[in-house]
């Protein structure tokens, strides 16, 4: 059986006989590693975000445009499939199998298709709207932030992106992914979930950032001052905004 992803995952396939990406998969390695699709037209920023994600134990695929991202996901082909007689909404119905990603992080300002437009396209897609999308931007315009959050973005991160931002995202994603998989499957050990949930709640509150970063002391964060983090905040996507005053 061929791989579902364009980017071959060689070390993964060495460990597994076949690529089983169902939620009930027993392959823990597949489950543990978060695959992030990073979209940014700036080469510098792509290098940085790629490194930030890799150092945070995420698998990364970086692409330089919204169109490139849609193409990788197989969404462009999906639209054409929908127009034909095919009734299935999953990407497996398309002749072209797209990349499987757990999270998309995109720059806002990009030529051609902005991060906002990419976000819209993803949320409009039946097969991809569940994927969390995070927007990055160096301009913290409130109207822009609101618009993105309203369109379904998980979070809006101010550039320059820091290691603490990426770690927080990954931790949040891991916590919510477990909850999502419990909701969709009945075979999961609920006690095991509860334990990891408790661990997550104690480690994820951003005001208690575990990784010491040079900037953690100085910039006022909207996040730690306004949104009190509680266990229930992990159930629904919290609209957390991190604002950093750059100068």
């Amino acid at each position: 059986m061929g791989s579902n992803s364009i980017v071959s995952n060689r070390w993964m396939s060495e460990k597994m006989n076949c690529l089983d990406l169902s939620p009930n998969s027993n392959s823990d390695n597949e489950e543990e590693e978060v695959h992030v699709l990073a979209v940014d037209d700036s080469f510098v920023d792509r290098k940085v975000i790629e490194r930030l994600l890799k150092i945070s134990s995420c698998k990364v695929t970086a692409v330089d445009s919204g169109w490139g991202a849609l193409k990788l996901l197989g969404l462009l082909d999906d639209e054409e499939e929908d127009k034909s007689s095919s009734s299935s909404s999953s990407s497996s119905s398309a002749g072209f199998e797209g990349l499987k990603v757990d999270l998309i992080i995109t720059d806002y300002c990009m030529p051609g298709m902005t991060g906002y437009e990419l976000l819209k396209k993803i949320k409009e897609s039946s097969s991809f709207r569940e994927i969390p999308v995070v927007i990055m931007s160096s301009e913290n315009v409130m109207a822009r932030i609101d618009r993105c959050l309203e369109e379904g973005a998980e979070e809006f991160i101010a550039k320059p992106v820091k290691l603490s931002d990426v770690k927080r995202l990954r931790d949040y994603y891991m916590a919510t992914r477990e909850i999502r998989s419990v909701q969709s499957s009945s075979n999961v050990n609920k006690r095991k979930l509860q334990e990891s949930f408790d661990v997550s709640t104690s480690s994820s509150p951003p005001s208690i950032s575990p990784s010491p970063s040079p900037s953690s002391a100085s910039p006022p964060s909207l996040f730690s001052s306004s949104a009190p983090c509680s266990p229930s905040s992990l159930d629904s996507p919290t609209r957390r905004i991190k604002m950093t005053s750059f100068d």
Partner: protein
Amino acid sequence: MLGWGVDRLRADMNRLLAMLFHQGVLDEQFLQLQQLEDESSPNFVSEVVNIYFHESEKLLRNLRGLLMDREFSDYKKMGTHLNQLIGSSSSIGAKRVRNVCVSFRAASEQNSRAGCLRALELLEHEYCYLKNKLHELFQMDQLRVLAAGVTYPPQH
């Protein structure tokens, strides 16, 4: 003897870095990049910075080209270039270059050609200073790595 050389180089590097921070040429984002270096990616900072130099010089050439054109009027295009430069400069921690670009952008939004020309000169100056200092830093780092690699007595 060589150990003293390595320590000396490291001290010089730290001094240079401290100066650049003090001058506001670099900010904490540069430190963040340094934290991303490890055995698997030992040259990460210089790799990213070199990409930054390459891209920035293209943008600077474009900006100068636009302004040198006597019939220049495309301030919007200028703004696009500047946005890119602002973004990448902030990503590597090039604080002064970034700030100069922000003022430059303000001048372009006012459609002020004279203001833009002045801003461009200042930007080119700041950029050159940054590039020279970072080259110095990387050269020292390369020397330090070389010096640290030499062992006494020689292996063969």
